[in-house]
């Protein structure tokens, strides 16, 4: 289960909507207790994909490293990655799966016509052959 606090959620949705019709990406920071993850803040990261970003994203390892440092400085953990699917449902595509890593939760935000539509969270398995959906709780306004 992954639960996202309103402040973090706002950052994620704002970022996904402002980069529309391109994909956005970012990291989620918070705390973990057993299987329960609690996202308290999020950091928008530049989409580093070189090409059409309408349906691709890439996070530079340097940016991920910097986010991890941020997390450590705030005594938080880097627990997940988020990205958007513009005008597409929030599924975990083959591209998502093959270029992910099994360590994190991956939250996908579907943005349709520039507005947030729905979201899902996924956990890729160790070999990145399938991703299991995990329960995602976000603040419904």
């Amino acid at each position, binding site marked *: 289960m992954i639960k996202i606090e309103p402040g973090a959620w706002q950052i994620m949705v704002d970022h996904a909507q402002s980069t529309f019709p391109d994909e956005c990406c970012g990291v989620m920071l918070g705390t973990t207790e057993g299987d329960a993850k609690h996202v308290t803040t999020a950091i928008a990261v530049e989409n580093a994909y070189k090409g059409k970003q309408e349906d691709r994203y890439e996070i530079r390892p*340097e940016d991920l490293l910097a986010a991890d440092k941020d997390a450590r400085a705030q005594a938080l953990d880097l627990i997940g990655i988020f990205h958007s699917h513009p*005008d597409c449902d929030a599924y975990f*595509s083959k*591209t998502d799966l093959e270029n992910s*890593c099994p*360590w994190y939760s991956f939250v996908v935000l579907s943005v349709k016509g520039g507005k947030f539509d729905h979201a899902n969270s996924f956990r890729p398995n160790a070999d990145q052959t399938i991703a299991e959906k995990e329960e995602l709780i976000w603040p419904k306004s």
Partner: protein
Amino acid sequence: MAKVLIPTPLRQFAGKQDSVELEGSTVGEVLSALTTQFPDLKKQIFNDEGKLRSFVNVYLNDEDIRYLKKNETVVAAADTLSIVPSIAGGSTVAEPPVTTLSKDEILRYSRHLIMPEVGMDGQIKLKNAKVLLVGAGGLGAPLGLYLAAAGVGRIGIVDFDVVDFTNLQRQVIHGTKDVGRKKLDSAHDRMKDINPNVHIDRYDVALSSENALEIISSYDMVVDGTDNFPTRYLVNDACVILKKPNVYGSIFRFEGQATVFAYPGGPCYRCLYPEPPPPGLVPSCAEGGVLGILPGIIGLIQATEAVKLILGVGESLVGRLMLYDALAMKFRELKLRRNPECPVCDDHPTVTKLIDYQQFCGIPQHAPEPEFVEGDIMPAEVKAKLDRGDKFLLLDVREPHEYQICNIPSAKLIPLGDLPKRVNELDSSTEIIAHCKSGMRSAKAVDFLKQSGFKKVRNMKGGILAWSDQVDPSVPKY
């Protein structure tokens, strides 16, 4: 001792520590010490061959070790090693087929859903379908509008043109406000407004032998809305090679044609027309004109065929060429058969990869801008002669209906085709300056008159279009 920072999800394998101090003088030694101390970490970071897993990057302070000396990179006591995954993704490739429709979609498509020929299964097929439109012009306009409305999930559009005023008489996907915009963007916005569920890929290029296979390969079928022979042969050959149906349409003046080419077992464009016509023989819409409604009718026949192919219902136009005549308001149909000796779709084709289609259609690589030839006269000079009152005859060789659109008042109208029988109306002792719309027909008139013994004949370069640009902007262009 070097410090290794452990990413959150891996801490469970490292005694719950967020960092570990380890011995070692190189990166390789430190990592080896890490996995010796915490064996469970090994398979998280290394693959079965003992190499770093594909998504794992190791940073020495702020530098990726791949750009240093990799495992041999020397580590000092104050250094920090970090393990950082590569992360990327995107909605693009190999989407899992959708199996459901949202509540909104069910409402939107309800008039489809209540017909058993479409139903939920059919509408889901439409949503999973990927169709490439070549051209966002006359045929592309109705195609884009209706395929988006019908719920085709992914529509690619190839076009590099910009909307201009002469397009608006038929290209109904673009509006007056879009003049000057890329057709791709204008079509995209209109289609998204009709149906935000549709994903639209924009290809701002001319389809060519270099990019056609790559672009087309991502789609289930191609709908050809092009207006020239090289692209038609290119689309045909690429579709045959990739085994993708090519939903074909073409229009001219009041008549149109439509069929489905390159369907497995069916004929292709080259079975019908093995060779292109000589360049210039078949006029384009820009030269011959087109009834604005015609591309609407032909484009929607193509859209219907595309939807039927996706749904797998009805009888498609495979093997039938539909001919439409708007003036007679008649549809006719010709049977098309595969040509057993077709160079592309035969079982032993001689054309197995894309060729140079400009050359195939006899079009020079870079059509040279016609030079200022002996006997040409610029519009401004003609204007000066008129103003001075010089004695000469300005001869307009266009058609009467063109003369009605715009003319230069002192000009005498004799259409090019009538010139031979009316040549006696001309006085060979007076200088003659011929003009037409853009200078091509009047050049032919000049040639004809010279052959008929006229000595003082000149051609106004660029025709009345150039006159409008260079002399009198109040003269409308068409």
